[in-house]
């Protein structure tokens, strides 16, 4: 398989899978889930076909069609996109296993629509990863927004509908008013939208316009959940947990920070930002987002809500890394896409497993649960430590590289911010584990009264336990193989002509 073919195929495969799911529908759920699993494995296999070439320094591409003069739908896989594609398609396999266990264990409705929209979202995420230019990225960015809307409103309740409005409202508002503005502006100033090493804007724009344009991109990428446009992410937690796990800890939010990274590296160019200092305000906004969202996370009793605020903070690590406009900052941000994805998806898997196994969603009710769900809680511990950034887990490398990036740009204050944020992460992640193992189990009769049969021993359905354990192992592997990741990403900031 040529890499060019693999690019097209991996975007199409999820769509084919989606059609298969829709055709089979509710008539034969087992066959339907079979289609999903086969699709996920094939997609990952196809994405892997592109990897060797990218590692060797090639950038395979595929031109689809020219919509308007200068506006071309086209793909080209560079290291950052390769990484994002691997993360999204790899974790899709695990999440699909998990989703089957979860959706059945939780007796969810409309499972056909769920699996179909899920596949569409992955196709869009891959399109974003491969985008050769801002236009292609924008097209798939919007497809991702609209294909995840039915997933957020899955339950169809008043609460879900309200959350859907927030979700769509913020994501569409930011992308249409800010992001599209930035793209049109760039097209007219730079005369092109193609991503290029070193950026396309150097010497084309200066003064306040540069600041405004960066702001349009940073806030326009609402999926990066930079404050004050972060409200959609906690709102999206109303979705079934597999959606929160893969889309709102990995695919959707990472699409956001990925866009920010791409724009900084390939549109502005880190030299332009470093020379003018145009991104310094963005560092401050990111730092504010990191700290305040961590503080909010401390106050949340609902586990998924706490994880959502944690995600907001962790996403801003990547924005901060990009805004530093140093090569280590960008590389640290890129690595954090993978590290945080694997760590956070583990935590969401655990949150869902607790919901399915023990019917609990509030942290204060989870005392002593760890002894009964040892595997789940062990995975939780590993995932948490990776998010906090402790060795021997993957998260430690990205945080280390980000610190290096701050040092490189002499942004000392932001080193302190990163360190404080780690402490805060201990504060909001560890209590769940501590309560689970060290506090006696509460026998609260007022809770779950109407679920008489649920007082039985918490059970751990295999398909809900295996995935978090797998991703926890992934956190360890990412620590060991982080160098490969670093080497793959390094060319994106390599000095030109060197």
């Amino acid at each position, binding site marked *: 398989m040529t890499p060019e073919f693999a690019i097209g195929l991996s975007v199409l495969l999820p769509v084919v899978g989606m059609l298969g799911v829709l055709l089979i529908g509710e008539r034969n759920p087992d066959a339907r889930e079979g289609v999903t699993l086969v699709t996920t494995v094939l997609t990952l296999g196809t994405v892997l076909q592109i990897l060797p070439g990218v590692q060797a320094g090639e950038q395979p591409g595929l031109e689809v069609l020219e919509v308007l003069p200068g506006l071309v739908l086209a793909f080209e896989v560079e290291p950052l996109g390769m990484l994002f594609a691997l993360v999204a398609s790899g974790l899709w396999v695990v999440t699909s296993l998990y989703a089957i266990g979860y959706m059945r264990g939780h007796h969810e409705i409309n499972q056909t629509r769920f699996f179909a929209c899920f596949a569409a979202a992955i196709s869009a995420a891959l399109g974003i990863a491969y985008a050769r230019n801002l236009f292609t990225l924008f097209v798939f960015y919007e497809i991702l927004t609209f294909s995840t809307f039915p997933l957020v409103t899955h339950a169809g309740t008043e609460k879900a*509908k309200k959350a859907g409005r927030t979700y769509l409202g913020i994501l569409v508002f930011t992308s*249409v008013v800010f992001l599209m503005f930035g793209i049109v502006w760039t097209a007219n100033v730079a005369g092109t939208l193609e991503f290029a090493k070193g950026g396309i804007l150097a010497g084309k724009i200066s003064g306040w316009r540069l600041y405004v344009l960066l702001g349009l991109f940073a806030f326009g990428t609402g999926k990066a959940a930079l404050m004050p446009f972060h409200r959609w992410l906690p709102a999206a937690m109303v979705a079934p947990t597999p959606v929160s796990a893969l889309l709102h800890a990995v695919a959707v939010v990472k699409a956001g920070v990925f866009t920010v990274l791409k724009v900084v590296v390939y549109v502005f160019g880190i030299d332009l930002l470093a020379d003018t200092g145009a991104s310094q305000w963005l560092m401050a906004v990111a730092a504010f987002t990191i700290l305040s969202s961590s503080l909010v996370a401390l106050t949340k009793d609902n586990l998924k809500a706490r994880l959502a605020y944690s995600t907001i903070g962790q996403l801003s690590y990547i924005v901060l890394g990009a805004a530093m406009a140093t090569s280590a900052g960008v590389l640290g941000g890129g690595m954090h896409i993978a590290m945080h994805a694997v760590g956070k998806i583990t935590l969401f898997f655990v949150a869902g497993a607790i919901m399915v196994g023990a019917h609990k969603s509030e942290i204060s009710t989870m005392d002593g649960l760890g002894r009964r769900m040892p595997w789940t809680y062990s995975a939780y511990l590993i995932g948490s430590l990776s998010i906090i950034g402790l060795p021997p887990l993957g998260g430690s490398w990205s945080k280390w590289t980000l610190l290096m990036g701050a040092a490189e740009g002499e942004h000392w204050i932001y080193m302190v911010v990163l360190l404080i944020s780690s402490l805060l992460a201990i504060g909001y992640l560890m209590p769940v584990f501590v309560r689970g193992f060290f506090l006696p189990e509460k026998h609260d009769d007022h809770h779950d009264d109407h679920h008489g049969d649920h007082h039985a021993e918490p059970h751990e359905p295999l398909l809900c336990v295996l995935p978090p354990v797998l991703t926890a192992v992934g956190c360890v592997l990412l620590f060991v193989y982080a160098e490969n990741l670093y080497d793959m990403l390094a060319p994106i900031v390599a000095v030109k002509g060197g």
Partner: protein
Amino acid sequence: MTEHLPALQVVVPMLAAPVCVLLRRTQAVKVFAVLVAWSTLAIAGTLLATVLDSGTISYKMGGWAAPAGIEYRVTIANAYILVLVTSVASVVLPFGLGSAGSSVPQDRKYLLFAAFLLCISGLLGITITGDAFNVFVFLEVTSLSSYALVSMGHGRRALMAAYSYLILGTIGGTFILLGVGLMYQMTGTLNVVDLSERLPEVMASRTMIVAFGFMMVGLFIKLAVFPLHQWLPNAYTYAPSTVSAFLAATATKVSYYVLARVVFTIFGAAYVFGELGLDRILIPLSLAAMFGGSVAAIYQTNVKRLLAYSSIAQIGYMTLGLSFNSLDGLTGGLVHLFNHAMMKGGLFLVVACVTYRLNSSMVDDWRGLGRRMPITMAAFVVGGLSLIGVPTTVGFVSKWYLVSAAVQQDKLVVAGAILLSSLLAVVYVWKIIETVYFKAPPEGGDPVAEAPMSMLIPTWILIGATIYFGLHTALTAGVASKAAALLLSGVP
């Protein structure tokens, strides 16, 4: 034969109209009208291909040369409009061909089709003619037949709507006539080519400013430019849905072409924008239409009225594009004519599908329709996304040109306003989508079936076109940009 195509373009539907009255039998009339519409499309397509290939065609009616005779003048710009009008007609007329359809009583159906064909003939005449007075004549043909079409709507309100449409339309027509009269008085010609040559000599006179003023106000009424849009919401709401689909997709578009022709070809951009400063009036009015129309649409409880107010906002985009007086701006305006015709035509046909089954266009009655009429409602979703301007739809293409034009002139606030106003479309489209998909169907109502194929196919042709032309823009934006270049060059 082919050299007479410019004449046939107008004459075929015009002569076909009385034939409908003679035929009388509903089914025969329907089939006949559809065939006529398709033949006009074939003629328009051939004309467009010819002018793209070998340049402007000048056709002398009856062999009489201008200025004594009437010249029909086919350029890239108006051939593009001819194709627009005839293709919408070709899709809308077959709508519901096999079914009982619409609110118009069976025994008067033939009148509907006769009026339809007259209206088509008038619209094509306005577009193709190269004679200023002839424009007025065809404007009246169009207006009279469209009053009749609107009045065939359900209930007495349709009569009221047609009446106020008639009053305002007549005022608009009269203003245009006054403008034409003054121009004739000053130049002694009605031919557009001659006018554009002789006007510069007399341009300084106050009479010409007055003539221009009359023309503008008259055209603004016909085009429903804010705040002269009052006739439009009622007319579109109470007319039969297929008529709304046709008029929304074509009538205002033709007026737009006349406006562009008066501004760029007859008076010339240098005079209109340089000396008179039309953009200083038209940009604020366009922005007011974009926001006012969209906000009004949000508060509507009737889907047809909602779409009508949305049209006022969309017309704002078109006039905004014109007032930039730049290639990208005018291209954006012209391509939006086509794009808006497809999406709004398609959306009104969706309403027609629903009213056929449900006999109601009230948002509240559409609860739960997502499961009962899935194919129709999917069309609504796609059309709605296009109205919002989501990428891969035609709405995005128009928006791209307009925002580009604003950025090029460093009008960043206007660019932001365009994007912001397109968000209002999200609000009114989503209001319906939530009702359709999230609310339970009304209790005790009769089960509602999916619309018949004869209605779904035309609807989906228009809706499908909003996606197809969102990705393949050679026929829309490509031609529109050539047309814009021609208009801007001032060559008649």
